């Protein structure tokens, strides 16, 4: 255990590397994320940002380096992995709701089967969560009957149902029509305000500047720049960040 024990660190990554065949997606990422911090990751596609947050809950296995989440190191030990996964909520670009289950069953599935909550308790919690994400009346519907924005909010509620300590967002608004982006960002804003530790990949600059504590800029598998949002978006230091921002702004 050479990784320093920093009581305030929720996620610590040291020299994390990841290959897909001969392609190196992550070339040594080191970063520490504090409890309650909201970190926004930006970068061009193929920069490794998505791969990186997927290593945090082990949807991708890192090949080198170490990752410690809430004091538990990610190893091949499947029990550790399942324990850590249940502490980390993840929201995907394409929602990935379970189409054969109602909204209610989507949300209660993991609490009932992993946490072993009795049904009434899980359903009461679900009602609260749907209230919180602003769609209390949709519990009995199937995902396909909801709009994209509503589906993504259900996905957030589903992740929150496990009472996670960390929430990962992998481009949560990229697949949404413009008029639905705000309703999802509003939920995320509220979540950040409640003190949740969040790692968010997004191109929503306004959201990043308002809610983010720190921006990580990824390019070519490297963490190129790290700065507070205002500083990063107004005066990026690296050439690559300048180029990237000139393309998306």
């Amino acid at each position, binding site marked *: 255990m050479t990784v320093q024990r920093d009581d305030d660190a929720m996620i610590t990554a040291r020299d994390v590397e990841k290959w897909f065949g001969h392609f190196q997606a992550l070339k040594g990422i080191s970063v520490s994320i504090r409890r309650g911090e909201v970190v926004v990751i930006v970068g061009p596609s193929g920069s490794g940002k998505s791969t990186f947050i997927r290593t945090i809950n082990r*949807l991708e296995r890192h090949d080198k380096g170490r990752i410690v989440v809430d004091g538990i190191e990610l190893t091949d030990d499947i029990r550790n992995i399942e324990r850590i996964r249940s502490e980390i909520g993840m929201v995907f670009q394409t929602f990935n709701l379970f189409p054969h289950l109602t909204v209610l069953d989507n949300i209660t599935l993991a609490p009932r089967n992993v946490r072993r909550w009795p049904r009434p308790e899980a359903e009461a919690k679900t009602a609260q969560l749907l209230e919180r994400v602003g769609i209390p009346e949709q519990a009995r519907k199937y995902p396909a009957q909801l709009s994209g924005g509503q589906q993504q909010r259900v996905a957030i509620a589903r992740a929150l149902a496990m009472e996670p300590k960390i929430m990962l967002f992998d481009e949560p608004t990229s697949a949404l029509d413009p008029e639905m982006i705000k309703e999802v960002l509003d939920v995320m804003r509220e979540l950040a305000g409640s003190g949740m530790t969040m790692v968010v990949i997004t191109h929503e600059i306004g959201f990043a500047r308002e809610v983010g504590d720190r921006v990580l800029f990824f390019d070519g598998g490297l963490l190129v720049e790290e700065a507070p949002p205002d500083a990063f978006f107004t005066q990026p230091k690296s050439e690559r960040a300048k180029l990237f921002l000139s393309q998306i702004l």
Partner: protein
Amino acid sequence: MSGALPEDLERSIVGVAEEPAVQVAPTRPPLTLGEWVHRNLFSSWFNGVLTVVTGILLAYLGFRLVQFVFVTADWSVLRANLRSYMVGRFPNDEIWRVWTVAFFLVVLVGISRGMLVPPPPTRRGLLLRALMGAAALGATLALVESFVVWLLVAVASALYAAAVVGGRLAGRRLARPILVAWLASFPLIIALLSFGDVGADRWGGLLLNLIAAIAVIALSFPLGLLLALGRRSSLPAVSWFCVGIIEVIRGVPLLTLLIFGRFVLILLLPPGLTFAQLVRAIFMFTLFSSAYVAEIVRGGLQGVPEGQYEAARALGLSTTRTMVLVALPQALRNTIPPMIGHFISVFKDTSLLAALSFSDLLFTARRASQAFEFVGDQAEALLPGAFLFWIVAFSMSRWSQRVEGRLGVGQR
């Protein structure tokens, strides 16, 4: 057909429209008979010729069929053998067992059907059913001379009608008891048909085909599921084993497997361990069917997007739970059409038992057609066999369409 929307679709459109301003698009008035004929049958001179030629052909075939069934045919061969067609050499004194099973199944099927098809039948549906019922009744009266059998058939029909109505009234409340009854029914039926001195060797006719088909379907479904999951296993030993079984079995004709079961399997078993012929045949048939079920399930699993597995894993669900709660329900729903198709094949393929000298329906029909006293009546002997196979297979197909409709396959 007429240009009007189906009633329920129309209702659902109107039901969805909450604001009165929404208008249903005006539908074309239904075509008159003359318009319909002109548009669909005589739209060009070539289509007109086709219509006339096909019409003459169909009319001729229809005439010959009616002529054969009601005039030329001598149904005495069927009258003499009807019992064998249905139950083979099942002992006469014990026939009450078969009737008990039939009553039990009639009630079970009726209730399930009432539950699955909630809307009351249309006038056309009722008429069709009345016609089918009358035809069945007529055939029974014409072919069976026993008053007791008439009575039993009448009681069964009445029970069926009552069960359908009961199922419709009860709705989903009965779902669980009915499911349990279905699961328990097969062992019960086997026990009822075989306890005492009636062995499996006395089963025959359609009864044998049905028992074999149901046994093979009930056994090969779980086995095929396991093979499909094993094939996807990350343990090489498990996946190679499953791939090996599937590919070997699929590469061999069913009849070969059945003959293997009859003559070779016994040599591979430890001495002293023997099984009835029928058990061995069903065992080999089950292996065969499992390989196909496995491939159907594999296809269904491939249709489940990777994101579903990722979402389940991200929630902390174990591999097993991910499979059982997330992947399989979606995969199996998508495999209902090919799965039912396969099960229909299984039922039809039970006629291969005839080649192993089991007195199944095909065997019985062939033997009847070869009997000395009915020389020249081959058609009368064989056609009813084919017709019985068709009735069962067609019913299975109709049922699967209903189940698909209920589960919304292809929607959501």
